[in-house]
């Protein structure tokens, strides 16, 4: 066609508008890269006061939490966070894995059509609603049904309740990732296995799950990082006692709850303020660590299909 005519169509003003748009949109986009750097450096700067007066070892491995006398041992909070997240993953992981296999390998489309909105809604329910559900359903259930089975007396506000609530919250998150992972496995692989005389279940066990293994691990890692930062729901049912929990029926005090419970009021004590910002930093580092690790695993896994 007539290229010159088309070129002439692009008038100088249109080109200028185009250039203008390009520049401000680039600036907008750079903003994205700046935000996380800004947050990390801000948190670092705020926690420097704490780090100047205490060694890192002291902060992380001491369990003495007496802000008024300048003692900031984070161990109870770190341990509570670990208890709650690991236990919740322990509950959620098998349910997600089994359900993911069911939905990708066995379920017909009516089941899929039913389960898809179920998962979406579970993923969309706000944290605070999970908290309310925890208080009215899970806490009494744990206090009246589960604890007596083990001969334990508890208010129900403890690690176990928090883990159950948290498990339900991460189930849709992990399940969605698992379904994606299993669906990226080429159908030809299943066909190859079947054509060698394997049955469906044998194929799932020896081919599909094995192929999906790195992806399954990353899905769990992402789930872990998601539940590590979960605040309100956990805070509402975990009991909030600053001591290293010695069992699942003990109350705990995870890092996000520490920040949420104290931040608004403790601005007047600089050391305390700094300590809370340090816990935000710690939280962010741990979450990013699991997040990045899992994503790299997934990416190296996806590369193998290209």
């Amino acid at each position, binding site marked *: 066609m007539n290229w010159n005519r088309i070129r002439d169509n692009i008038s100088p003003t249109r080109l200028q508008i185009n250039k203008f748009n390009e520049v401000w949109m680039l600036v907008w986009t750079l903003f994205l890269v700046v935000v996380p750097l800004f947050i990390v450096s801000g948190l670092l700067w705020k926690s420097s006061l704490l780090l100047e007066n205490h060694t890192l070892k002291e902060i992380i491995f001491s369990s003495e939490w007496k802000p008024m006398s300048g003692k900031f041992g984070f161990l109870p909070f770190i341990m509570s966070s670990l208890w709650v997240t690991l236990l919740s993953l322990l509950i959620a992981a098998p349910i997600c894995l089994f359900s993911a296999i069911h939905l990708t390998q066995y379920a*017909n489309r009516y089941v899929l059509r039913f389960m898809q909105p179920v998962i979406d809604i579970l993923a969309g329910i706000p944290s605070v609603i999970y908290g309310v559900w925890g208080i009215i359903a899970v806490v009494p259930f744990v206090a009246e049904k589960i604890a007596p089975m083990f001969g334990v007396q508890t208010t129900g506000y403890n690690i176990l309740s928090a883990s159950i609530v948290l498990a339900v919250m991460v189930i849709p998150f992990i399940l969605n990732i698992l379904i994606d992972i299993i669906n990226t496995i*080429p*159908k*030809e*692989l*299943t*066909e*190859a*296995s*079947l*054509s*060698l*005389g*394997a*049955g469906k279940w*044998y194929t799932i066990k*020896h*081919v599909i799950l*094995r*192929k999906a293994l790195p992806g399954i691990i990353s899905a769990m890692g992402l789930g872990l990082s998601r539940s590590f930062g979960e605040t309100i729901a956990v805070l509402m049912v975990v009991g909030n006692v600053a001591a290293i929990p010695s069992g699942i029926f003990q109350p705990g005090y995870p890092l996000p709850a520490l920040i949420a419970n104290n931040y608004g009021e403790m601005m007047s004590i600089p050391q305390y303020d700094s300590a809370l910002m340090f816990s935000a930093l710690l939280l962010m580092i741990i979450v990013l660590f699991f997040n990045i690790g899992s994503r790299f695993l997934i990416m190296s896994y996806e590369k*193998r299909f290209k």
Partner: protein
Amino acid sequence: MENQTKIKVESLNLSIGNKVILNDINISIPKNKITVILGPSGCGKSTLMKSMNRLTDLYPEMKVSGNIFIDDEDILHTKNDVTEIRKRMGLLSQRPYPLPMSIYKNVAYGLKISGRVNKQLLNKRVEHYLQQASLWNEVKDRLKDPASSLSIGQQQRLCLARGLAVDPDIILADEPTSALDPISSQEIEKKFLELKGNYTIILVTHILRQAARIADYVVFMYLGEVIEQGPAKEFFSNPQTEITKAYLRGSIN
């Protein structure tokens, strides 16, 4: 003896929803020969192959009717175990899909499914089939390596060895050389010519020259129908229909 039929497809129809994929297919595939299925892209060649070893079961949306006889057993309506039927056919796909395990285990996979096998016997058979696929010399020192570490050509030969290991009498090969370099392709072709004494081979290909080189019998498909079938010599020297002629000239694609 000359023209013993191994697979007989009778009025096979296959549709997805309202879309007809295969329309009234009738073919006879001779025993221990290489049958080449030709046809432009999307005409249903792969689907025909899939119905022969019941992989169509994997796609609940596909509706299949008609009969496929293998050694006089109607595999579409048999009461026998589908996995036993599938084991009688080795499958080679367009791209190699090695199972996510070691080279050794890929070959042993089919042998181990149906029961515990003596370790020494297993070693012997793995070696035997790797040799059959002319891969043994290249991999004998790295049997424990993941199969994905092999080159594409080697992977395809591994898939051949894996398929032969379950002792099939039919080999279904769906464009097995399309992802391979010319040398690896030649190796596979040579392999097929060697194997056809003991196996009935069905090969889908786009490459006319490949078909002419190795086919004994040709089936030509177009838009889900079989247009023409017959011995390779006659097919290439004296095509019956206009569509076939056009295809052989290269003007359909």
